[in-house]
C-alpha cells in the first residue's frame, strides 16, 4: 500500500498557510473590495482633498496646483472650529434624528409585532402596505404633509377645535420643528418596521409558550423574552432611521420654519448657494465622523455581554 501520510501532511500544510487557496479567496473578496473602493473610498478621498482646497472664484474649487506649488489650506477647518454655530446645528440635528428614531421605534415596534403575529397569509400583504408609500415620489409625499399640517386642513382644524375650549390660540403646525419631526418620522418609519419585522417574524413561538408555562404573564413575556430577543432588529432599525435622518435636508426645507436649519441644509447651502465647496466638504466629513462614532457606540452597547450572575 502506498504511503499517503506525507501527502496528507502536504495538503494540510498548504491549506493551513492558505497559500494553496489564495486565487480563490481573491475571486471571492475582490468584487466587494472593488465596490467599496469605487463607491466609498475614492469619493471619501475626493472629499477629504476638497476640504483642504480653496474655493473657486465662481463656485467649485480653485486649481490644486498654482504657480508650480500645491495650493492647499486649512481655512475651512479653522472656520468650523472658531464658530460655535456649526456645532449647535450639529447638536440640533442629532437631537432631531434621535427624536425621530425614538418615535419610529415607538410607532414601528407595535406595528411590526402585530404583523409578525398575524396569520401567515396576511403578513406579506401587510408588509406590502408598509412599503407601499415608496412607490410614489418622496417629494410629493412630503408636499402632501404641507397640506395636512397647513392652516386649512381637517387635521389642523380638529386640533384647534380641541384646544380652543381650554383657552389656547389656534395653531398651524406647518413650518415648525414639530412639522419637521412629523415629516422625518413619516418618511423613515418603514425603515424601522422592516428590520424589526424581519427579526420578530423569526422568533420561535415555543419560547413564548415556555415563558407562559413557567409563570410569565403577557407583560413579562414581552419584556423578558420578545423584546430582548428583538434587540438586533431594534439596533438595525435605529441605524437605518438615525443615519439618514441626521443628514436629510428636503424635509426641514419644505416643512420647517426659518429656525429649523439642520446640518443637511447647511451642507446643501455650502454647495449650492454660498458655493464654498471646501467648507461643505468639512461639514460632510464631520457628519460622517459623527454618524460613524454613534454607530460604533451603539455597536459597543449592543454587543452581547456575558453575565455570570443570575
Amino acid at each position: 500500500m502506498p504511503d499517503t501520510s506525507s501527502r496528507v501532511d502536504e495538503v494540510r500544510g498548504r491549506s493551513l498557510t492558505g497559500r494553496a487557496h489564495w486565487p480563490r479567496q481573491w475571486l471571492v473578496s475582490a468584487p466587494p473590495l472593488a465596490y467599496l473602493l469605487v463607491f466609498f473610498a475614492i469619493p471619501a478621498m475626493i472629499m477629504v482633498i476638497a476640504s483642504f482646497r480653496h474655493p473657486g472664484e465662481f463656485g467649485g474649487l480653485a486649481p490644486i496646483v498654482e504657480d508650480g506649488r500645491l495650493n492647499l489650506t486649512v481655512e475651512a477647518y479653522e472656520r468650523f472650529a472658531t464658530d460655535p454655530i456649526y456645532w449647535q446645528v450639529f447638536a440640533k440635528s442629532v437631537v432631531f434624528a434621535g427624536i425621530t428614531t425614538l418615535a419610529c421605534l415607538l410607532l414601528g415596534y407595535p406595528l411590526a409585532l402585530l404583523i409578525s403575529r398575524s396569520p401567515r397569509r396576511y403578513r406579506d400583504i401587510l408588509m406590502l402596505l408598509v412599503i407601499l408609500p415608496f412607490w410614489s415620489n418622496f417629494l410629493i409625499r412630503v408636499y402632501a404633509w404641507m397640506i395636512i399640517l397647513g392652516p386649512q386642513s381637517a387635521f389642523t382644524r380638529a386640533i384647534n377645535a380641541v384646544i380652543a375650549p381650554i383657552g389656547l390660540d389656534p395653531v398651524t403646525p406647518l413650518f415648525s420643528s414639530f412639522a419637521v419631526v412629523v415629516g422625518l418620522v413619516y418618511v423613515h418609519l418603514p425603515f424601522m418596521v422592516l428590520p424589526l419585522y424581519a427579526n420578530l417574524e423569526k422568533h420561535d413561538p415555543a419560547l413564548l409558550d415556555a415563558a407562559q408555562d413557567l409563570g410569565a404573564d403577557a407583560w413579562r413575556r414581552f419584556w423578558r423574552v420578545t423584546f430582548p430577543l428583538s434587540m438586533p432588529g431594534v439596533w438595525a432599525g435605529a441605524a437605518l432611521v438615525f443615519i439618514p435622518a441626521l443628514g436629510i435636508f428636503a424635509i426641514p426645507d419644505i416643512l420647517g420654519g426659518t429656525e429649523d436649519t439642520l446640518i443637511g441644509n447647511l451642507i446643501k447651502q455650502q454647495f449650492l448657494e454660498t458655493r464654498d465647496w471646501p467648507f461643505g466638504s468639512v461639514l460632510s466629513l464631520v457628519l460622517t465622523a459623527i454618524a460613524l462614532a454613534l454607530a460604533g457606540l451603539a455597536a459597543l452597547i449592543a454587543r452581547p455581554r456575558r453575565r455570570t450572575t443570575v
Partner: protein
Amino acid sequence: MALLDVRNVTRRFGDFVAVDDVSFSVNAGEFFTLLGPSGCGKTTLLRMIAGFDAPDAGSIVLDGIDLRSTPPEKRPIHTVFQSYALFPHMTVAQNIAFPLRMAGKSRSEIHAMVADALGQVKLTDKSARYPHELSGGQKQRVALARGLVNRPRLLLLDEPLAALDAKLREDLQLELINLQKDVGITFVYVTHDQTEALALSHRIAVMNHGKIEQLDEPSRIYSFPTTRFVADFIGHCNLFDGDIAAASPSAGGTLVELDVERLGRIRALASGGVATGTSGSLAVRPERIRISAEPTQASEENHYTGHVRDFLYMGDVTVYIVETTGGHRVEALLANSAAGRTQFFEAGDRVDVAWRYDAGHFIAG
C-alpha cells in the same frame, strides 16, 4: 385522592376528533406515560393539561380544583418541551432562574435553588454558558432543571428525548428515572417510543385515534395487551386471527381452540368467559416461541413445522421469520447467548416452531 383527574375530555379540530372522551387519573409521585403513534391525541391532551388548549367537553382537575379558568402561567404545572425552548438570550443559570423570578422569589432564594438544580442535573460548571454552546443532552438537562426548579405539582414532558441519539437517550432515561424518584414530582410523559415508555413508566396509557386503548403497568401492557392495536404497537407480536371452535373452562380462564386459516388449530388460554364462535386474535410474543430443528411432542404445546424464510441478526438476539407448511408466517426470537454460536439456522432450514398453550393471550374482536 388522585393528583390529576382527566374526566371525559374531548377536543375536536373541525371534523377531526383529536381527543375522544378520555378519562384517567394520575396519582401523586407517579411516572405516568401517554404512549401512541403521532396523531393519536397525546400531545393535544398534554397541551390541554398545560393550559395552552381547552377541552371542548369534559374537565381537567388538579388537586380537586377544576383548571378550566386557570391560564397556563397560573397553573402549578410546568412543561419540558420537545424543542427544549430554552431562552437563547439567557445563560443556563438565568434560564433555570426564570420560573423562580416569575414566582417572585428573593435573590438569595433563587441563587440557592438554581445552584441546587444545576447540581441535580450535573451542570454546575455550565451555569454561565448560553444554550447555543451546549450539546443536545445538556440542553435537555437544562430544560428539565428549569421545569423542576420551582417544584411544580406536575411536570409534563413532551417527547423530551426524541431529538437525541440512541446511546444518549438510554443514559438520560436512567437519569430521568432517578431524578423523578429523588424530587418526587409527578411526571406525565408523552412519547411514541414504546421501549422508552416501558422502561420509564409506573403506568402507561396507550392511545390511538384519540382514545385510550389500554391503561396499565408496563409489564401488564406488554404481556397482556387487551386490544389488537396494543399488541401490535408494543413490541413485536405474532397475531393469529381466527374463530373459536371450542371452549372449556379451566384454571386460568377459558381453554379455547382457535381455527386459524393457513395454520390450523391453536390451543390457547383466554381470560374470562369466551363463547364458541367468537372471532379474535391470539397474540404471542416472538420470544415465547421456541424454534428447534427437531420436532418435540410436549402435550401442552402448539407446534407447527415450516422453514426459515428470513432472519434478522440483531446482535443480542436473532429474529427468525418462519413460514409454516400451511403458509402462515410466525416470528420467533432466539437469544444469541450460547457460547461460540452466532446463528442457529439458515434461510431455508426446516424447523419446528412451538409455544405453550398459555404463552399467548386471546384478544376478542
